[in-house]
């Protein structure tokens, strides 16, 4: 039986621990997502202007919904395409 040390792994053993995702709203104590604040909401969009899913933003369900609602209002309101600076 091969001794443990002699086992050669084809790919490198993934040792780095992935940093635990946290909900930034809970951590910073933000309670209200302002739909007028374009700069802040931009963080939740990818470059094509689509909304990032929860598993990437790490938001809790409650705040992900608030962000989604705010973004939809922002798009309707600022009437600016996501790609343009708004």
């Amino acid at each position, binding site marked *: 039986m091969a001794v443990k040390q002699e086992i050669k792994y084809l790919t490198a053993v993934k040792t780095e621990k992935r940093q635990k995702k946290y909900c930034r709203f809970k951590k910073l104590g933000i309670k209200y997502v*302002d739909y*007028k604040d374009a700069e802040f909401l931009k963080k939740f969009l990818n470059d094509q202007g689509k909304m990032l899913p929860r598993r990437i933003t790490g938001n809790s369900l409650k705040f992900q919904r608030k962000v989604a609602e705010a973004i939809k209002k922002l798009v309707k*309101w600022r009437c*600016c395409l996501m790609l343009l600076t708004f």
Partner: protein
Amino acid sequence: MSNYELMVIYTPVLSEEDAKSIQKKFADVISDNGGQIVHENPWGLKSLAYPIQKKTTGLYVVVEFTAPSDLNEKLKIQLNRDENVLRYMVTKLDKHAVAYNARKRGSLNAESKTVEA
């Protein structure tokens, strides 16, 4: 008396005092029907992504006010009737939102003038 936030886009063609007079008109509508304006925040001209009524820029005004619940219907009728208004939206503010706006306005007071009606 719940808090509301009215956001309106006016047509850019109207001049300065026209904009003021229209804003005044809506302010009166709110205050007549028992509402009370907390803060008016004109954003000025902003470009639109797609032309609304053949206009590519709009005059943005955000008005925060407290009002009885039945006031919005009256306001809507007024806004629909006015042809200078391109688009309007009334959102209800919960207590966190009011606190947020107050805090933001606190820091904003330093530079911009706020219209206290």
